[in-house]
């Protein structure tokens, strides 16, 4: 229940943000943080709960992005329709790779490397074919308005992403309490033991990668409407894969709020770096890297591990009371 309250509270607190915050910069900042939280949630489902570390989530993100862009440009499909089909297409790619990879029992770093290779294969293919725009990439026409998922104001994208992140939070909440979640976590802890208990690891992991892929694909569809441009490197390059895994690991693997926390923390760190060394190219990212290493050294369980005791609502209240006394 506590988690459910926290989810509702989180959404309610952020909901009026575009009305209260006048600054477009901060709205964009929040929107992007939510976007990466959403991508991280997709990864967390497979990596955090299922224990399958993917280095190639760009595979799903890119498939979703290309799917919606191609359908929109070549077939004039509506962006919302594209969004749904993007999730389906990326889910299918997830199912396909999952079937192949899990069938042959790849785990650990082998699984990580094979997903990386799949993303590279798709990047090379996207680079070589006419209908993906090859190296030139695809440019989605600018059609502001709700109908094409390109909102007139910044608030539109913010609310869309907040809704998606909120939905994912609820989904993860459900997962933690559902039988499927229990099976998935059993597989993460020990596959052989899970099998002994009657859990089918192959089937469980396959479902997880399909769902994870579908969510990452829908993130790709949103990205395309947000920036109206996609090319093979943005879609399938390693940058997006790294972003997808950093967010939940920093935030707290296999936790409901981990990806959200991680995304906001990483974005804040990047912003601090830019504020501190904006005019010295490189130094800002050095600071980012240093903070990353320090977090790993001193917060081995992610940010969520830090607040595990004091993060519940009750302790939060205590925290505020303490503050009032001081």
């Amino acid at each position, binding site marked *: 229940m506590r988690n459910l309250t926290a989810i509702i509270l989180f959404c309610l607190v952020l909901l009026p943000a575009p009305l209260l915050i006048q600054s477009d910069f901060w709205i964009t900042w929040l929107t992007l943080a939510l976007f990466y939280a959403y991508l991280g949630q997709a990864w967390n489902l497979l990596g955090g709960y299922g224990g399958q*570390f993917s280095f190639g989530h760009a595979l799903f993100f890119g498939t979703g992005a290309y799917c919606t862009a191609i359908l929109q440009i070549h077939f004039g499909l509506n962006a919302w329709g594209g969004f749904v089909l993007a999730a389906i297409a990326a889910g299918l790619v997830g199912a396909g790779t999952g079937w*192949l*990879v899990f069938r*042959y029992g*790849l785990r*650990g*770093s*082998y699984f*990580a*490397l*094979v997903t*990386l*290779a*799949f993303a*590279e*294969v798709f990047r*090379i*293919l996207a*680079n*070589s074919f006419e209908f993906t725009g090859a190296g030139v990439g695809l440019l989605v026409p600018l059609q502001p308005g709700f109908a094409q998922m390109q909102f007139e104001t910044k608030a539109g994208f913010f609310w869309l992403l907040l809704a998606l992140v909120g939905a994912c939070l609820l989904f993860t909440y459900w997962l933690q309490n559902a039988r499927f979640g229990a099976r998935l976590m059993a597989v993460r802890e020990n596959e052989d033991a899970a099998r002994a208990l009657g859990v089918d690891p192959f089937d469980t992991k396959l479902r997880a990668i399909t769902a994870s892929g579908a969510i990452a694909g829908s993130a790709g569809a949103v990205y395309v409407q947000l920036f109206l441009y996609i090319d093979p490197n943005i879609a399938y390059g390693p940058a997006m894969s*790294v972003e997808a895994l*950093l967010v939940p*690991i*920093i935030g707290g*693997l296999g936790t409901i709020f981990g990806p959200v926390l991680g995304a906001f923390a990483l974005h804040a760190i990047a912003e601090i770096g830019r504020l501190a060394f904006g005019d*010295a*190219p*490189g*130094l*800002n*990212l*050095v600071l*980012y*890297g*240093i903070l*990353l*290493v320090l977090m*790993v*050294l001193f917060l*081995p*369980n992610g940010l969520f591990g830090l607040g595990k005791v004091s993060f519940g609502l009750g302790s939060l209240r205590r925290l505020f009371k303490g503050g009032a006394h001081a």
Partner: protein
Amino acid sequence: MLELSILLPAILNGLTTGAIYALIALGLTLIYGVLHIINFAHGSLLMLALYGVFFLHSLFGIDPYLALPIAAAALFAVGYGLQRLIIGHASHGKDENILLVTLGLSVIIENLALYLWRSDTRTIDTPYSFEVVDFGVAFIPVPKVIAFFGALLVAALLWLLMARTDLGRAIRALAKERQGAKLVGINVEHIFAMSFGIGCACLGVAACLLLPSFYVSPQVGHAFVLVAFTVVVLGGMGSFVGALLGGLIIGVTESLGGLFLGESLGQLGIFLIFIIVLLFRPTGLLGQRA
């Protein structure tokens, strides 16, 4: 297109390029084999080594091949220090932490290089830059011929080190059985750091052999790191002979793939081999079953 006059030189080119891949992968496979970590900072460390060799040449006029012992020693020190001071403390029993820490280190190293030395591509000009060896069917640039034999030599030396020295025995013991090695009195921290250091020293050697025919920029590591992973997997994680063989195979595959499918699409061959090996023989060509 299937003329022998183009096929043979393409294979020769693939072998010499593959030798460079093997050199870079040798360090990676050692680190993976012993520490079981996927070292994301490998590319950045290669870049650091290349800058070292570049500055030795441009500031002190030291030929890259003569800089070899300096570069190897310096990179060994960097690697030993990194493992002892940072990476070794990061795991807290979790593999993902090591992954993050090497990722963080690569971000730091790369951007520090960008800040200190700007983003310009730098090259060196040596008297032998444009020299070639005539193999009858093809001209192969002298630096690539040297790199080819250099890779063979380094692989052989590593193999000797592992097979014939106490250090090598300790490393192998640690790679096989961590707890057992601890019990017989092996200083685990030290041996881990030695392995990481030797892995990095290989990069120092690779940098000396690579720079005369290549360039250096803060981003240069990205060009090799994925291929190096492929080579390590193909050869079998932890196997030197495997890495050497894997490098040559990948080099030739890339070369022939480029010939038949075009340079852009031809890269596909590398990753298809990678996936197929992972699926059907995850221990690689010469790796041992875990």
